[in-house]
């Protein structure tokens, strides 16, 4: 079922060798609103806030921005509002610039970054505003879960009673069966990410959680518990991106996108040969490292998509930090802590920073840009020069990888 093209074939197909020679794409401004259940703000309020922060951070006059793209999964179901491109440009007073939203389930944010990356790389746009946004708390918990569930194969998984946590529980159960991963392992990403988020003023949860509390939290779908799962979050994040030649004009601390890659896999989890590995992550990471001309050991800091803790364990393996089956062991050894060899989710990840689905992919890039600029304060990974983000859609049907460098 896997139609994995060889890297060389893909490079040839896309002419990536030629691509690399051209102007790089820079991130010159980052912004976020405080993530959380924002009862007093609607979609417009906090999306505007994140965008404004990004623009002020970049020091770019609004008139220089010539395009906008916003990542959003399902504002239509969450709030009743669609057509977010025009919506955001209008609220931001950005005039008549082209704007649209992109959707790739939980990878919508990553897809927005990638769209802007390609638009700037092609020369069509010079300076772009990238937003990611989601308002999830205006519907009840059940409806929020239903809306997330449509990221999987609704007709053949959701309709038969497989909730989104249930699908990740399939992966967790199988991972435990094949590799001996334990319930302690499943709790470890949560403990680590909450500890990291304690130093992130934008995070939804800024308090550490002891492991026994995680292991005794309510069951969602065995063996997954409430505290293994990313929360319902409102929030937005923004970036200002431009071409390399312009970056120096606006910013003293530009961060560059060294590679942007994306892979797809089957929509339904049951169609995959293995459910303990995400092939889309394996291939998109390989393509990205090749494009950036780097090896995994060159990467100093990671943001990996931990919508459920088993997700972080599987991604740790698929990215190559740990061998297959040893993601739990890597957590035990502290390799993925800040100060470890491969720090993962210094921001707190989706679990503790919060997971407004459309905003997550952008928020990952915001965190990594701050890390590379040395602006991450108490959660700073010392001397970080290269960073890698993996943003997943659904149960791994979409994987978007960005590598940043300074």
């Amino acid at each position, binding site marked *: 079922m896997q139609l994995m093209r060889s890297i060389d074939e893909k490079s040839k197909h896309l002419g990536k060798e030629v691509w690399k020679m051209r102007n790089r794409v820079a991130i010159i401004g980052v912004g976020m609103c405080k993530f959380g259940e924002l009862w007093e703000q609607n979609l417009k309020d906090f999306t505007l806030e994140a965008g404004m922060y990004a623009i002020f951070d970049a020091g770019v006059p609004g008139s220089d921005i010539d395009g906008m793209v916003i990542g959003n999964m399902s504002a239509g179901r969450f709030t009743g509002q669609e057509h977010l491109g025009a919506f955001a440009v209008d609220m931001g007073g950005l005039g008549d610039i082209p704007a649209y939203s992109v959707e790739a389930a939980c990878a919508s944010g990553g897809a927005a970054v990638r769209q802007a990356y390609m638009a700037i790389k092609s020369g069509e746009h010079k300076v772009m505003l990238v937003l990611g946004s989601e308002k999830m708390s205006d519907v009840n918990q059940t409806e929020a879960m239903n809306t997330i569930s449509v990221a999987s194969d609704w*007709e*053949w998984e959701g*309709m038969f009673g497989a909730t989104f946590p249930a699908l990740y529980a399939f992966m967790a159960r199988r991972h435990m069966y094949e590799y001996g991963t334990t319930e302690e392992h499943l709790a470890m990403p949560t403990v680590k990410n909450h500890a990291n988020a304690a130093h992130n003023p934008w995070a939804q949860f800024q308090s550490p959680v002891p492991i026994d509390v995680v292991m005794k939290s309510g069951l969602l779908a065995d063996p*997954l518990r409430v505290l293994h799962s990313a929360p319902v979050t409102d929030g937005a994040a923004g970036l200002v991106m431009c071409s390399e030649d312009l970056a120096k004009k606006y910013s003293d601390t530009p961060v560059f996108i060294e590679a942007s890659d994306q892979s797809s896999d089957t929509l*339904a989890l049951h169609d995959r040969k293995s*459910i303990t590995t995400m092939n889309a992550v394996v291939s998109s990471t390989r393509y990205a490292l090749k494009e950036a001309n780097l090896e995994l050991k060159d990467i100093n800091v990671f943001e990996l998509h931990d919508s459920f803790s088993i997700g972080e364990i599987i991604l740790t393996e698929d990215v190559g930090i740990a061998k297959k089956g040893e993601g739990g062991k890597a957590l035990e050894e502290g390799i993925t802590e800040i100060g470890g060899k491969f720090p993962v989710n210094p921001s707190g990840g989706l679990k503790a920073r919060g997971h407004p689905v459309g905003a997550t992919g952008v928020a990952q890039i915001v965190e990594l840009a701050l890390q590379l600029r040395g602006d991450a304060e108490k959660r700073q990974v010392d001397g970080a020069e290269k960073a890698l983000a993996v943003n997943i859609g659904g149960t791994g049907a979409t994987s978007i990888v960005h590598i940043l460098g300074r």
Partner: protein
Amino acid sequence: MAEQGVASVWRRIKAIYTIQGNMCKTCGSYYFPPRPVCPECRRKGKLELYTFKGLGTIYSYTVVRQAPEDFKRQMPYVIAQVELDEGTRLTAQIVNVDIENVEIGMRVRACFRKIKEFGQGGIIAYGYKFEPTMKVTGHKEKSSPKQKEP
């Protein structure tokens, strides 16, 4: 919403009622749910309808303890990925079993059950769930062949 529609279930009842998928004459792969294109062979593929025998093995499972409105009355329920004997997998509920007896590798067979109601006043969808084969064959519990380690 679209999923409330009668047509969305009705147009799939062959597949949902009888586990009808397809099989590619070119490469011999079986597909369920039915696919419009064989992803292995693409334009060279020759897909034919195939009705699965409905026998399989539990590949992975979970117990759903927080469910959408339409499933609340069934909670907690077991849902699994069942590997059909033909080699493809599907997602279905496991019934007629005590939760603590479910395990990876358990032999199961398809049965016809009510799946869900589409909200109040919505249609009732029927289709496949799975149950342990031991219920009908009298095999002693957990005599199922363990799945091979991958």
